[in-house]
């Protein structure tokens, strides 16, 4: 099974601190910061490094301020071997 590693970027200046993302995060990794943004809202920050990139937070965010990233270990496939004077070079592609 591929290991999923995710991450999010939050536009904290536009965050209104509604915490709906935190309530929907299955990893419980979001919480309100003690600090305020320039609008006077406590903004959401990540408090754990266990994001799986499930997009729950972004789906429920009313202000559309969360970008979600997800990286899976990619399978690779050998398609050719090229020989030259220094040795073999194997060409792989991601699939």
């Amino acid at each position, binding site marked *: 099974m591929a290991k999923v*590693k*995710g*991450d999010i*970027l*939050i*536009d*904290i*200046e*536009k965050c*209104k*601190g*509604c*915490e*709906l993302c*935190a*309530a*929907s995060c299955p990893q419980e990794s979001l*919480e309100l*910061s*003690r600090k305020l*943004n320039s609008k006077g*809202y406590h903004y959401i*920050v*990540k*408090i*754990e*490094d266990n994001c799986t*990139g*499930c*997009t*729950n937070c*972004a*789906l*429920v*965010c*009313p*202000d*559309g301020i*969360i*970008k*979600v*990233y*997800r*990286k899976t270990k990619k399978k690779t496939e050998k398609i050719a071997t090229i020989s030259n004077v220094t040795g073999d070079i194997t060409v792989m592609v991601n699939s």
Partner: protein
Amino acid sequence: MNEKTMTEEQHFADVITEESICTNENLVFDRTETLIDTPMHYCPGCGHGVAHRLIAEVIDELGIQDKTIGVAPVGCSVFMYNYMNIDMTEAPHGRASAAATGIKRVLPDKYVFSYQGDGDLAAIGTGETIHTCNRGENILMVFINNGIYGMTGGQMAPTTLVGMKSTTTPFGREVEVMGNPLKITELIAQLPGVYYCTRVAVNSPVNVRKAKKAILNGFKYQELKKGLSFVEIVTNCPSNWKMAPVESNKWMEENMFPFYPLGDLKIPGNLPKAGKGE
């Protein structure tokens, strides 16, 4: 707790892993093009923001930005035309479905939707709502039901629940004085002119996905020219319900959903319970 700090140039929280996975090839969710990148004026936690985003996403996925005209209501979402990068008209209070009728009748091959709150659609606009549905105009009507009047400061709506407090029902809605909450969606689902009628919510990821599917249907069914699509989104109004957003969603699940149950009221042409075609 590992609190993140922000840099001054980008107002984004930093990533903590050894190598950043926040690259374009790993991007799985981002703001869609038709949703204009500008702060929205809605209260924290208000469902309007999600509803607008879903409509924008559907328009972009179907590639119909150049063929869609929306009609905004009077209510909190009166400024919807500032958030959606499509041609839009701002209609008088209650009349969005009539304006949408006018547009669709003269531009029958375009995608037309109206977007209204509970006062707009089920109080002042009831006549237009019923007749637009009855005529079976090939449009999508989006009905944002939060059981209260938002923009004007929290008065009772036709869909306010019995016992629910508002500025005009300070002791809770009384049936003897104001009648029962109006299930307008159930009423119009009976009309043969309504091809598709469903009730969704945007309070959880599962519901957001279902709501998006409903809106997608509402646009796609216009191509069939078989009648009107009606999508009710039951949502919260944290400010006027006087609750924090997370709490308001919980209250909604416990109180609004039992009275306004989510699900299809009419799937293409048929009332599911009746089991008969129209």
